[in-house]
C-alpha cells in the first residue's frame, strides 16, 4: 500500500487490508467490531477518501524507486529498529506476562455480540457514548465550514 505511486491503488489496497482485518476480528470472536469495521471503515471512510482522490484528480507521483533519497533509507532503518524493539517486547514466543495467553477466555463468544456491547454502551459507557455524538456533530460542522469557505 505505501509503495504504490497512484493514490487510488493505495486506497484500494488499504480497503483490502481493512476487509482482511474484519476477518481477523471474526477469528477473535468480535462480531460487532468486525461488522462495524466493514461498515464504517471500508464502507464510509474509504469511500470518502476515494471520492476526494478522484475529486482532486491527482496525477501519479514519480515511482518510489526513482526518487529514493537518504531520508527514505534513514526512516526505513529507524522503523525496522522500532519493529525489532516491539517484537522484542512482545516476545517471539510470547514469554513473560503473555505466556499464559494461549486460548480465548471462556466468555469471549458472548462478550463480542451486538447485544452485550450494546448493553455495555448504554449502561457503563453511556456518558462517553453521548460525548461521541457531540464530537461527530462538531466534526460535521467543521468539515462543512472548511470545505465551503473560501480562504483569502
Amino acid at each position, binding site marked *: 500500500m*505505501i509503495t504504490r505511486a497512484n493514490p487510488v491503488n493505495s486506497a484500494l489496497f488499504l480497503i483490502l*487490508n481493512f476487509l482482511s482485518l474484519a476477518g481477523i476480528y471474526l477469528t477473535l470472536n*468480535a462480531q460487532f467490531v468486525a461488522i*462495524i*469495521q466493514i461498515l464504517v471503515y471500508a464502507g464510509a471512510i474509504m469511500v470518502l477518501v476515494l471520492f476526494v482522490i478522484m475529486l482532486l484528480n491527482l496525477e501519479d507521483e514519480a515511482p518510489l524507486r526513482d526518487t529514493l533519497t537518504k*531520508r527514505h533509507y534513514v526512516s526505513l532503518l529507524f522503523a525496522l529498529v522500532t519493529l525489532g524493539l516491539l517484537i522484542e517486547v512482545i516476545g517471539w514466543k*510470547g514469554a513473560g506476562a503473555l505466556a499464559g495467553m494461549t486460548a480465548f477466555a471462556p466468555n469471549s463468544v458472548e462478550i463480542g455480540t451486538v447485544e452485550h456491547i450494546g448493553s455495555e454502551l448504554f449502561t457503563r459507557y453511556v456518558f462517553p457514548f453521548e460525548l461521541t455524538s457531540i464530537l461527530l456533530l462538531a466534526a460535521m460542522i467543521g468539515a462543512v465550514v472548511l470545505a465551503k469557505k473560501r480562504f483569502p
Partner: protein
Amino acid sequence: MIPIHYYLILSAVMFITGVVGVLTRRNAIIIFMCIELMLNSVNLTFVAFSSYLGNVDGQIFVFFVMAVAAAEAAVGLAIVIALFRNKQTVNINDVNILKW
C-alpha cells in the same frame, strides 16, 4: 488455539508499515491513509486483548476509536480540499507557510 503474540506481532508490523508510510510519502492523502492504518493496528491489539482476557472494555474502546477516526476523516479530508483549492497541490513539501 493461536497464542496472543501472533496477533500482537501482526499489529506491530501494521503499525510500522503506517509509520514508514508517514515518514516516506509526501502526498497528504496517502499520509492520511497511513494514519488510519496505524489506528487500525492499535484496534487489533485492543480486540485481541479483549478476547484473551474476557473483558469487553477493549471492544468498547475500539468503538470509540472508530468514531474518532470517522470524525478525523471528515475534517482531515476537508482540510485537504481547502489546501488543494488554495495551493493546487497536496504535496506537503510545497506547503510551508507555517515554516519558520
